[in-house]
């Protein structure tokens, strides 16, 4: 099927540039890694946000600590679109190593702020160039050593602010936020910014249409990364043990845990009600989680692709011995080490079947920080209720970038600790793996239970209802059938899909962070006369709603960021009789999907089908 490839470099909407473009364009800042430009970029992002303008920032960074090119994309969208734009009209070209390519990728009519000290610059007469004498500034502020880099980055903040109209107060607020109000740091930075701002006012003649203006669209919202939201969710969801091994892009989940836990979860006397262990590798990390889950903790780990591969054996144990465990998989591009700093939805199939033998795991798919927060607790609830492994599949884009979010809802429901018998509830009839209510879930006891009959021996080998070792064929079958029953139970209690439907003939199904791009694509398609309904999955296994949705539509496109259309395949297997109603729109190049690609691909396929 002829899925068009994303084009890079050419602006689809070049041409209609000369009207004013207020709050509706994208900025890209090109710098080198490790120069501290993150601070400047986040400052711009936050300042825009403080001006009430919907924004989204995406950091496209290399797998490196210092020196390689990095790009920060800021989308400014009065309409509230937060998906990635493939083209940015405003370029801050502060990395000489990539300036040629960066300038080339500007759409016609775009603008370029650059360091005027460079000997040569690529030439284009269809864009507007604004040179900034960086060295002069640095001399002026007397910056030396590592401060040179930092101040250089503040220079473009000031100049850009002047050029496109970012308010200095908003910038100061943003800096204050970033440096936790430490004026000693804020002030010198503001000084540089002010200098550049003033200089630009005097020396740069505005020759382009791109401007921002205060709006009122971010009131009550805040900016947060998915990983920090996930950490907060776990903290409010009763996490008691986190065992982990560093790996990009999951590391910041644990960084956020460590940062927030003491204030939020030390008890009155300052004692921790949690423990965070940096393990020696992922096998040990998941081993600790499984050990802790067995002993009654709410235990989790956070990892990414290679870690998921290494956790396969323990995943199977958790599945089969029925031990609550939670893995946050912040997906990056695989197979193998792949692109460690790029985003994907490539672990779906593998995670779903993680572990040899017949295995089916519960997966959750948060799409935004609010869901990261929510699923932080939901994952534990499900793991303990279903006594099994739950994998939360987030991704680098959601996890490491800042997203606008509504305030998180305080979890009203009590923690769902599942079927655990206390000492006074144990009796002779109890059997660890007995299905007493048709859900497939048995009662467990925890180590430390004082009842003399409460002990049982947990194992990854065959066992009967009372957890006694057994190689009996029928017992094996019964046990595995019961475990499968839990999966059916799960269908009813995992978070259901979110639907936006208005009787269109065409459906779209997606999950996770493709949502904003899909919403934008749907608007585009609608404008072109192609109406679509949208269902966003939030978990596997699915419930009947999904099938009904597919049935109701002539065709349903499954949009996802991987090569093989993994969810598409899983859904086809769930409804083989209508499998051909499901069409795959799958693409993975490490960048978050863009609305253009979705709209054009879907449109192209529609044309092929409807002739």
């Amino acid at each position, binding site marked *: 099927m002829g899925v068009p490839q994303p084009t890079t470099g050419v602006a689809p909407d070049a041409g209609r540039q000369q009207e004013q473009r207020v709050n509706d364009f994208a900025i890209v800042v090109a710098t080198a890694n490790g120069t501290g430009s993150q601070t400047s970029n986040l400052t711009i992002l936050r300042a825009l946000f403080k001006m009430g303008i919907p924004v989204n920032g995406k950091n496209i960074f290399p797998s490196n600590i210092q020196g390689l090119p990095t790009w920060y994309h800021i989308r400014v969208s009065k309409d509230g679109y937060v998906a990635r734009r493939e083209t940015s009209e405003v370029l801050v070209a502060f990395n000489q190593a990539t300036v040629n390519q960066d300038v080339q990728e500007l759409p016609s009519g775009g603008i370029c702020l650059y360091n005027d000290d460079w000997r040569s610059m690529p030439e284009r007469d269809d864009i507007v160039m604004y040179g900034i004498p960086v060295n002069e500034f640095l001399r002026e502020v007397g910056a030396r050593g590592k401060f040179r880099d930092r101040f250089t980055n503040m220079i473009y903040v000031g100049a850009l602010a002047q050029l496109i109209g970012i308010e200095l107060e908003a910038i100061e607020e943003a800096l204050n936020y970033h440096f936790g109000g430490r004026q000693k740091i804020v002030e010198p930075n503001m000084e540089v910014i002010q200098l550049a701002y003033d200089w630009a006012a005097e020396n740069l003649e505005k020759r382009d249409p791109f401007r921002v203006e205060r709006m009122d669209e971010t009131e009550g919202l805040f900016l*947060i990364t998915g990983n920090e939201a996930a950490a907060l969710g776990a903290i409010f969801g009763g996490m*008691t043990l986190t065992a982990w091994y560093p790996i990009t892009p999951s590391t910041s989940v644990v960084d956020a845990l460590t940062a927030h836990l003491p204030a939020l979860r030390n008890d009155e006397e300052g004692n921790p009600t949690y423990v965070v262990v940096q393990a*020696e590798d992922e096998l040990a990390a998941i*081993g600790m989680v499984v050990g*802790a889950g067995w002993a009654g903790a709410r235990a989790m780990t956070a990892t990414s692709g290679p870690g998921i591969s290494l956790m396969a054996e323990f995943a199977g144990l958790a599945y089969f011995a029925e031990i609550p465990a939670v893995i946050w998989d912040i997906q990056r591009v695989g197979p193998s080490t792949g692109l460690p700093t790029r985003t994907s939805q490539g672990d779906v199939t593998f995670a779903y079947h993680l572990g040899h033998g017949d295995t089916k795991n519960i997966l959750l798919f948060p799409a935004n920080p609010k869901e990261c927060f929510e699923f932080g607790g939901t994952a534990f609830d499900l793991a303990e209720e279903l006594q099994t492994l739950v994998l939360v599949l987030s991704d680098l884009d959601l996890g490491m970038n800042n997203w606008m979010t509504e305030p998180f809802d305080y979890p009203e429901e009590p923690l769902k600790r599942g079927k655990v018998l206390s000492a006074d509830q144990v009796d002779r009839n109890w059997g660890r793996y007995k299905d007493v209510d048709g859900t497939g879930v048995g009662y467990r006891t925890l*180590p*430390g239970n004082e009842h003399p009959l409460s*002990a049982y*021996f947990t194992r990854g080998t065959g066992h009967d209802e009372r957890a006694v070792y057994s190689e009996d064929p029928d017992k094996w079958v019964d046990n595995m059938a019961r475990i499968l029953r839990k999966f059916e139970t799960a269908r009813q209690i995992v978070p259901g899909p979110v639907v936006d439907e208005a009787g269109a003939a065409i459906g779209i199904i997606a999950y996770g962070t493709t949502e904003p791009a899909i919403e934008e694509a749907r608007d585009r398609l609608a404008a072109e006369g192609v109406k679509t309904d949208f269902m966003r999955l939030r978990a596997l296994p699915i419930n009947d709603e999904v099938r009904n949705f597919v049935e109701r539509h002539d065709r349903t496109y499954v949009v996802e960021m991987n090569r093989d259309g993994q969810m598409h395949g899983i859904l086809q297997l769930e409804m083989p009789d209508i499998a051909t109603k499901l069409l795959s729109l799958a693409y993975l190049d490490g960048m978050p999907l863009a609305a253009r690609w979705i709209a054009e691909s879907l449109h192209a396929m529609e044309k092929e089908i409807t002739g």
Partner: protein
Amino acid sequence: MSSRTRDRTNEIGLEFTDYKGQPTTLCQGCGHNSISNQIVQIAFELNVRPHEIIKLSGIGCSSKSPAYFLGMSHGFNALHGRMPSVGTGALLANHHLKAMGVSGDGDTGSIGMGQFKHICRRNLRMVYIVENNGVYGLTKGQFSATADEGLELKYAGYNEFPPIDLCQEAIVAGCGFVARSFSGDPTQVRELMKAALSHGGTAVLDIISPCVAFNNVDHSTKSYTYGKKHEVPLHDIGYVPKREEIMIDEYGPGEARSVELHDGSHIILRKLESDYDPTDRLGALARLEEALETRELVTGLIYFNDERPSLAEAAGLKDSLPALAHLPDEKLRPSRKKLDEVMARFL
């Protein structure tokens, strides 16, 4: 043990048989069975409350054995080589539990080497028994990493590689209680186990435990015959529970040394080898090195040092605090106010 022991109840009213597990399915004569029996006995003698113990293991004949003792304690027969991580999780989830872990030389020295080293380094409080037979019993007798260099066995063939010394490994990794024993010396095994249970960190017991099915030829250092002939105990060992402290004085000074353990009990070492000092790390390494060369089976408490905090202590889990696993909801979920405060900081 006299038959009387088997009949009476101990101080917490449990009978000897209450400490037993399922009947063993290991081979008759397997060293591992003898070790299981010693565990049953010391648990009885020490008045252990079964629910305060967890049993842990990896995979192997040795790792099956927790099914054959302490049937009233929770147990977890985990994955091959992964007992340490499972134990770490369990004992952090509930730091009031004591863990009796049983592994094999394959489980620990091969696939489990990394986790073994790191549990020692973190000083997780658990008894870590290696039932060391120099072979992979359960998979029918291949050499493990502790097999003698140059050993020839019927099934396994000829071993090209030098043995790993698990006691040296434990010491180098920072373990503070490292002992070696021999399943054919049940008295010593028991006293060491008792002391290990009283230790405040990782206690490694490397117990030579002959595999009668696959590695019991007389010249193998892991055979019964060899062990019986070549065991060199470093000291006579006596364990004195806390409440019997008074007895310690009965041990004459000079040739005996008393070491206080984490829980206030003592271990009395009556020197057999005149200049052996179990608190000297280098001396311990040296003695092991020598034994490796002379092919002696030195046994006893080889190294002792209780200065380092246990992992739970380092994590701030004080003895006075309830187990993480048993915290009530109020402790697990901060207030609505706290959430508002956190979110306010993002605005």
